[in-house]
């Protein structure tokens, strides 16, 4: 058994029109594969990153999101999800 670790990172949302449903869906699907508890935060609001229902309530405009993971695979989860979001949301 590995120890529970906490890991977090900041993800920029650079697209002018902000977040769309599709990248969110991709994020949620990927997040579901990790054991760790995964949280997305923005402007004082925290939501479960494994739920599209919750993720869609985050204000979706431009600006950073914070991803936080607690659990045995926290590091991997943060790495995988931030990589994914960078690709989906960066630039444009």
């Amino acid at each position, binding site marked *: 058994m590995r120890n529970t670790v906490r890991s977090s990172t900041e993800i920029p949302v650079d697209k002018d029109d902000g977040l769309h449903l599709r990248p969110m869906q991709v994020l949620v699907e990927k997040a579901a594969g990790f054991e760790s508890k995964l949280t997305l935060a923005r402007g004082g609001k925290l939501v479960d990153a494994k739920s599209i229902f919750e993720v869609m309530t985050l*204000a979706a405009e431009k600006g950073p999101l914070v991803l936080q993971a607690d659990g045995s695979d926290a590091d991997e989860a943060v790495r995988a999800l931030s990589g994914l979001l960078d690709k989906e949301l960066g630039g444009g």
Partner: protein
Amino acid sequence: MDRFKGIGVSRGVAVGDAFVIESERMPVRPRYIPEDQIEAEVERYDSAVVAAIEGIRDDQRRLTPRLGEEYLAIFETHIRMLDDRSLRDRVVERIRAGPMAAEAAADEVLRQHIQLLFEDKSTARWVSDIYDIQSRLHRILLGRSSGDLVELAEPAIIVAENLTPSQTVAFERGKVLAIAMEAGGETSHTAIIANALGIPAVVGLRGLTAGVRAGDRLIVDGGAGEVVTEPDQAILAQYVQIEHDIVESDRQLIDELHELPAETVAGRRITLYANIEFPYEVQTALDNGAEGIGLYRTEYLYMEKGREPTEEEHFEAYRSAAALMWPRPVVIRTFDLGADKATDSTGGPVTAEPNPFLGCRSIRLCFDRIGMFKAQLRAILRASVHGYVKILFPMITSLTELKRAKDILAEVREELDTEGYPFEPDVEVGVMIEVPGAAVMADAFAREVDFFSIGTNDLIQYTLAVDRGNPVVSDLFQPAHPAVMKLIKHTIEAGDAAGIPVAVCGQMSGDLSYLILLLGLGLRQFSTSPKITPELKRAIRLIKIEEAREIASEVMKEPSIERTIEILTTRSRELMK
């Protein structure tokens, strides 16, 4: 006369009568339940979710031929939402806390969610998606029939406060002249779908539903983002002119090119065929200057009817297409069902397969359902005396399979002969080259068939082991991958060596830079959506074949995808200047 200003999300002008859709806000009366029914209500909720997801899948299947796969990603998102654990937790919590009935609990949770989404401008655009899953759940939990399917007797302009994506896609093709609604933004689903259907749409029209009654004469200007109600004669005439001009400029491109051949600068003749799904598209293909049907995707006959078509229905579809196209050829591909096109119409549901794209699809399904396969072949052969018909077998991977398909065709010929039906004795037979194994063996196949048709979508998918419908990996779907190029080049060369024609009928040839590359590789036949035929013809008439060859040989030396794309984009831009 009134004017409403909104956001134009799909260009074009339409004049017609308003069909007003009342907002579907089915009020749900809170129904409280005794404690011993809590578990039963939770179960009822769970089965409603399952049924709602099934309903979405049905819509998906029904609408894919009309809209194309990419637009149906909306439905995947809805499935994800319905299946969401957090939603379920909240609904179950409400059922217990009431204790109340499932529909009342779901209604409370979803209404709160909608409130939350409305609080921020950037999230308000998703409210219509929540309405959509809400109405699906309600219909099931309250046992109401589908209220989404709006039956339009006459073509009309749809006016609504908000349309759910399901409502938008459910309209019958040709019956909706335009869409005008109060809610929505530029990226709303209605916008996407209106574009796909090619009808004008304006959204964000504040106060519209209060100002319009059913039957009012309306003008919708999708370019300007404007709606005019009960226009006077002068305004009406002005818009009729605008509408006319738009149609005219499209027509002009078509007319300009109609009598001109598709040939390159040096006069090399290129053949442009059209891909069609339904017989009525034959006319579009002719109008747009296509020289034949390069790919008739007959599986849509099955999907459209939701059952296996009878031999007569097959025959009538093929006969009319062949007769209309005569003396130009119509290449009829036998049903390519299974995998993403699995339907009950294939004679009972296809058994759940762990890897449907590697499973019993396409020609393999034809062999599995010999009766169905023979009925289709009979109809094709019978249609062969009414025009110039060719047969195309999809997804052939080995000579054994090809032989089997030809043997079955021979049996059908004999049967028809015995029964006294007339048919063309030497109908040409071709294979789709869409599996890497077949592309590698193209020279062997070339000796056994009359023509090749390269299906680039599947060829890329199987060569690179990537499902382009899966958003997580779809960026690996790269037509520019050198392995794909080599397989296509090899297939073209094998066809040339054997003296049989080779066509490409995937989406790849619709892209200008790939069009140039394929020409450079020696391809002389293309089959695409008839909509882009004039566009392709115009491009071909600007291309010098030597330059295309240079580009192709440069690309073929390049092992990297990124460099290949770079070469293709810069060189094709230079060439098309």
